[in-house]
């Protein structure tokens, strides 16, 4: 199994990663190794084995439905560069 350049570009785009053109060949090679390892695992017969959703075979604890958080907007927004009237501002998403 090998990966081609367009697949690498797609993966990078999905993750919103900017990659250098000259690095792509190396990514192809490195990622293909990981994919090959998965292919190897795929060859194991798992017909009678239930899929595992989490490596720890325990179940989640649940929280009672109480409001425990207070308004910390000022603190949180002290980290943000663009804000107005309590909103976080981002570049306009639609025209």
């Amino acid at each position, binding site marked *: 199994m090998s990966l081609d350049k367009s697949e690498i570009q*797609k993966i990078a*785009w*999905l993750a*919103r990663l900017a990659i250098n053109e000259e690095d792509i060949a190396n990514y192809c090679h490195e990622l293909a190794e990981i994919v090959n390892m998965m292919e190897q695992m795929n060859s194991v017969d798992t017909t009678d084995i239930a*899929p595992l*959703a*989490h490596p*720890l075979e*325990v*179940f*989640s*604890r*649940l*929280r*009672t*439905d*109480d*409001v*425990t*958080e207070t*308004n*910390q*907007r000022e603190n*949180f*927004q002290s980290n943000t560069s*663009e804000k*107005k*009237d*309590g*909103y*976080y*501002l*981002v*570049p*306009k*998403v*639609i025209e």
Partner: protein
Amino acid sequence: MNKLEKWETVIGLEIHAQLSTKSKIFSGASTNYGADPNTQACAVDLGLPGVLPVINEEAIQMAIKFGLAINAKIPKTSVFARKNYFYPDLPKGYQISQFELPIVSNGHIEIETENKKNKTIRITRAHLEEDAGKSNHDEFIGFTGIDLNRAGNPLLEIVSEPDMSNAKEAISYLKKIHTLVCYLKICDGNMQEGSFRCDANVSIKLKKQKELGTRTEIKNLNSFKFIESAINYEIERQINVIESDKTVVQETRLYDSNKNETRSMRSKEEANDYRYFPDPDLLPILIADETKEAIKKSIPELPDVKCKRYQKELALSKYDSDNLTSNPDIADYFEETIKITNGNAKICANWIMGDLSASLNKKNIAIKNSPVSAKMLGDLINLIIDKTISGKIAKTVFEAMWNGEGNAISIIESKDLKQVTDSGKIEKIIDEIITENSSQVEQYKNSSDEKKQKLIGFFVGQIMKKSKGKANPKQVNELLKEKLDN
């Protein structure tokens, strides 16, 4: 041939019902609607580094309750998954949702079609997920404002099979689910505030054709009326596309209620690729049989059962029963009034669907905020039943109660509205009217039966007027005829 007759429509719906928990699905921030932007968005909702989600038990229970009410399968374990995409109102870059092992699968409900037939609509699955924030595109020049108060609100996404064949059936299904979630008290059903919203998948195919046509997904549907118009518009559009030898493109379309049309959302560069995988931050949840049993016991009488009971036990019509059970608050109100009036169901139904509904609609008030409580209306109805007042006077009393002038008894006393049933007093008034209208009395004596009936109406009118509407109409009729005919 009418072009609609040649084509068959296939509709499936995805409903998002916001669960009425106090806090969010994975954090302890409040879910109250309408707060100042970002005052209810905590570190978890903002997706700050190092935070971990913790599942709200109430949201799980509400989802199970829904599943049990639609006879669905509830698995022993259920798993949360990440749905990955980038959008500014989704700070983590993924939405916590469910993919494999949703909490509810394979349920169904019955709807009534246009020609009054029952039809089963299958519900593929209902899964839990967190809502995203809200984008405000209008208020800031060159920017979009992001309010993350809604981020993390618990949603139950209810996905139907493509079992509906026209817009009317889709609405019937939606209303059924809407009524159900309100009865179960797991969602407030408020469509204006977005607590109950819907996306519709619509496709058409030739009647004889087996395989489904290409579907489009219509988003932005937040009222029953708009959903119906949007689906009908889309059916028409797809027929036109195909009949002009073009092909329907699989895409998401937005409904514009001002123009009554759907239009393509700019298609993204690539098809969505959400790369679901189990969320490593969350362990699977275990649903014990005892939990299911306990929740099952907490399910109230559901609308279908209630509706049948009203017809059978209370001898109400299907129409009355449908109306009274359409909303749990109306049904509760109705049941309280019957209790107060010792089971006089029909008169209670008439008052609730008549004067009360009219007054509530006029002022756009929900029945649970009615200025005339079930107790007040029940007391008023009792006074009609025991003939303290006539049905007509009762309308005056109702209006006074609506305007906050007190309860029925105090209004009747202060306005002196008590019905006159003392036959001596009624006879006295009748005698006066007969004396004052001697020519009509002459006419009456020489008239045909038909004409007599009209004159009776005239006399009764005069008598009621003189008694200020308080004379018991039945007694007036009887006594008047006796006097005129002898």
